[in-house]
């Protein structure tokens, strides 16, 4: 064996991909030869629709454009826009349940995560699991495109995502077999892709409206350092809301969404979305024609009506933009660029509202759907150590604090603090010999904690028994570069570090994720497969029994040759029933159905003849 210098070099680096996990579309990208490049999906497309269909047949979930076809045909088994449900509880979303053409269900009573569930046929999923399926598909796409395994990724999230939503995204990545090196904010990622070959200095506003979320970020560029000055947004506002508004307009004073079947809802939303896109690209009125509850209905959506429907929704972005400017300490005249990101920014009405808010003409990106993934790829390249002249300095979107006397919020880390962000707080005891202190962490901007979002709670344990007020425990809060909270505690007298187990208010604990990773997912797959098998057997059994019953008379009724064909098909079905493959059971059952048409007719005719002769 020769001793080579190469032996001392770092091992060949695994690729790190950048992923935009979007409400309506997802993409994976990587930097090659210094340029970000979108990798094609396994369907050969640049975008992967964030749609997952769990087919009644077959064992693998179907994703992307193929799943989108299921959306109308089989709404009950198709999930989309699940990003709106990530890191959210059933209580958070139940008011909006009628907007989803699939069923939202509360978590089981014994589930501490509180996360909303999605029912697809027999199976119930969290949004984390559905997102994991999308991420896994992207990972496989990247592996196919790159010809090597991919295990590391940077994933983007809306800047205004809270801790629970970020945790949920990271968990989905882990379930998809990805080591999530960094969670970065979508507008920041977009600015990275946008500002790459652009000016080295400047102050830019990124107006990012996706399928389900809106973000505004104000950044300052200093020779390759992208410093976020402020961010604001709305995690429940996006292109989907425009579709909903068109859908409501189409129903007008007739039906409400609640009265529609899941299939009709899906067809209506799809029709609305198609009209929106057509108006955006053609600038001309569009007819929507749909059959709802068995009635055909046609309405023409004029550009004027469309703009009237969109404007109030888009105007909701104004308050966020003004707050972001104020937090950055800037007037809109001080900006050098306004960058629009996200599919809906193709719509002239969106461009118009954004330019009104900022009083300037926006820079529209060539690929508003792709810049976020490209930016994620650049960030991945930074983390890989390949790109060294760029750096992102991001902020926490929401203030973080703890509950204090009277249910008030004591802010420890104000919003727009740069990450990583640190804060320390000293706690003591209220009773003699008290050994534990409960701490409840919140995220939000209101004075009353009850109006903010519970982020986590934890207990300081093992405090030395002492008179009240004597022990002094310093708790350190650290929001890491992903925008996720870490907590540690130390006894100030003994300097002893105390363990702190933080229980996320909405989400899975590390132990739960581990369990899902090791066994849960496999079991769940097993459960699904088992249900499918039972279904297939139940469906096939009556046909098989009926055919077997009439087989003795088959020669006489349909002739020897035909009867042999039936006997062969029945043998195959019997074989399949003994096995465990639901697809084969269905196929052979269908085969039996097909070859017994004539026999069935003859049997029926004979039965009828006997009935009339005995009368």
């Amino acid at each position, binding site marked *: 064996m020769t001793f080579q210098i190469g032996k001392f070099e770092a091992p060949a680096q695994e690729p790190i991909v950048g992923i935009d996990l979007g409400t309506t579309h997802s993409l994976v990208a990587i930097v090659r030869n210094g340029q970000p490049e979108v990798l094609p999906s396994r369907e050969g497309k640049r975008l992967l629709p964030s749609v997952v269909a769990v087919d009644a047949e077959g064992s693998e979930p179907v994703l992307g454009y193929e799943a989108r076809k299921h959306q109308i045909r089989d709404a009950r088994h198709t999930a989309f826009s699940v990003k709106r449900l990530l890191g959210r509880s059933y209580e958070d979303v139940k008011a909006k349940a009628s907007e989803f053409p699939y069923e939202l269900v509360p978590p089981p009573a014994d589930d501490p995560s509180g996360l909303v569930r999605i029912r697809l046929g027999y199976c119930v999923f969290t949004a984390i699991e559905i997102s994991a399926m999308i991420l896994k598909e992207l990972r496989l796409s990247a592996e196919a495109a790159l010809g090597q395994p991919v295990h590391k990724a940077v994933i983007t999230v809306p800047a205004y995502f809270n801790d629970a939503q970020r945790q949920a995204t990271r968990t989905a990545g882990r379930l998809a077999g990805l080591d999530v090196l960094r969670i970065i904010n979508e507008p920041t990622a977009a600015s990275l892709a946008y500002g790459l070959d652009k000016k080295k200095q400047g102050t830019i506003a990124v107006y990012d409206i996706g399928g389900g979320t809106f973000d505004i970020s104000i950044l300052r560029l200093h020779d390759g*350092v992208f410093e976020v000055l402020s961010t604001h947004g709305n995690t429940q506002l996006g292109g989907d809301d425009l579709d909903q508004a068109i859908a409501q307009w189409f129903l007008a004073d007739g039906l409400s969404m609640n009265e529609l079947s899941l299939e009709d809802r899906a067809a209506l939303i799809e029709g609305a979305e198609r009209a929106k896109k057509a108006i955006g690209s053609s600038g001309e009125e569009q007819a929507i024609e749909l059959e709802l509850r068995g009635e055909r209905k046609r309405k023409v959506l004029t550009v004027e009506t469309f703009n009237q429907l969109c404007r109030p929704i888009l105007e909701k972005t104004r308050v966020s933009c003004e707050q972001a400017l104020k937090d950055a300490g800037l007037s809109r005249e001080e900006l050098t660029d306004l960058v629009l990101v996200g599919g809906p920014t193709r719509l002239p009405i969106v461009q118009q509202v954004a330019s009104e808010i900022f009083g300037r003409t926006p820079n529209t990106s060539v690929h508003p759907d792709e810049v976020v993934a490209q930016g994620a790829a650049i*960030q991945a390249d930074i983390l*890989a150590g390949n790109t060294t002249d760029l750096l992102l300095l991001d902020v926490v979107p929401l203030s973080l604090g703890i509950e204090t006397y009277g249910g008030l919020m004591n802010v420890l880390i104000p919003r727009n603090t740069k990450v*990583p962000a*640190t804060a320390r707080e000293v706690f003591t005891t209220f009773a003699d010999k008290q050994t534990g202190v409960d701490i409840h962490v919140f995220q939000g901007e209101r004075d009353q904690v009850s109006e903010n979002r519970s982020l986590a709670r934890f207990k300081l344990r093992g405090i030395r028994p002492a008179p009240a007020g004597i022990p002094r425990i310093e708790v350190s809060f650290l929001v890491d*570069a992903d925008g996720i909270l870490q907590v540690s505690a130390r006894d100030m007298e003994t300097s002893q570090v105390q363990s702190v187990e933080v229980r996320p208010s909405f989400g899975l604990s590390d132990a739960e994720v581990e369990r899902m990773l090791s066994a849960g997912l496999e079991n769940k797959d097993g459960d699904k497969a088992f249900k499918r098998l039972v279904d297939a057997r139940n469906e096939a059994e009556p046909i098989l029994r009926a055919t077997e019953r009439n087989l003795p008379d088959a020669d006489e009724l349909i002739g020897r040759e035909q009867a042999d064909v039936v006997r062969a098909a029945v043998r195959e079905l019997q074989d399949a029933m003994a096995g465990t493959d639901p697809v084969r059971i269905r196929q052979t059952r269908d085969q039996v159905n097909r070859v017994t048409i004539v026999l069935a007719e003859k049997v029926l005719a004979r039965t009828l003849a006997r009935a009339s002769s005995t009368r």
Partner: protein
Amino acid sequence: MPRRFAQDRAALQKRFLDLSRALHPDRFARAPEGVRQASLERMGLVNEAYRLLTDRNAVRDYLLAEAGIAGKPVRSMDDLELAERWFELQEQVMELDDPREPVEKFAGELQLLIVSSQERMQELEKKFDAGEESGSEAAETLREMSAAAQRGNTLRSMLRDVERLKARVGLG
């Protein structure tokens, strides 16, 4: 860093950006866990320091805490007079058909007082920066600042109450 309010913003920013380029966790993504955590904590401290140094209120709080000057409430006759008028105004609003004029007048006065308290604070900051860093004169300036800061807080919170009152009687 000099112990003063007026900082060279450009120099401070350059120092911050240089430290960020060197210490940010993105530079250590492939490093061992211990190094990554150390980078995270150090960058956190740099961010915290930068935030405090660019916030005059935070600098003042820091200097006050260091000098051991507690934020003891100081009540002046001015405060008392203002409080009395505020109660009077609330009664008037209940009685008058159109309370617009007295409410707007009071709000305008508060705004003027806030501006002058900000000016006063800037004077004190300059005085502190010009003088010795320690000694009885510096301590006296800090004490005045503490009082001025409280006065500013009182005025701002009263103005918020007036805005709420305006909204309640439909003047908002």
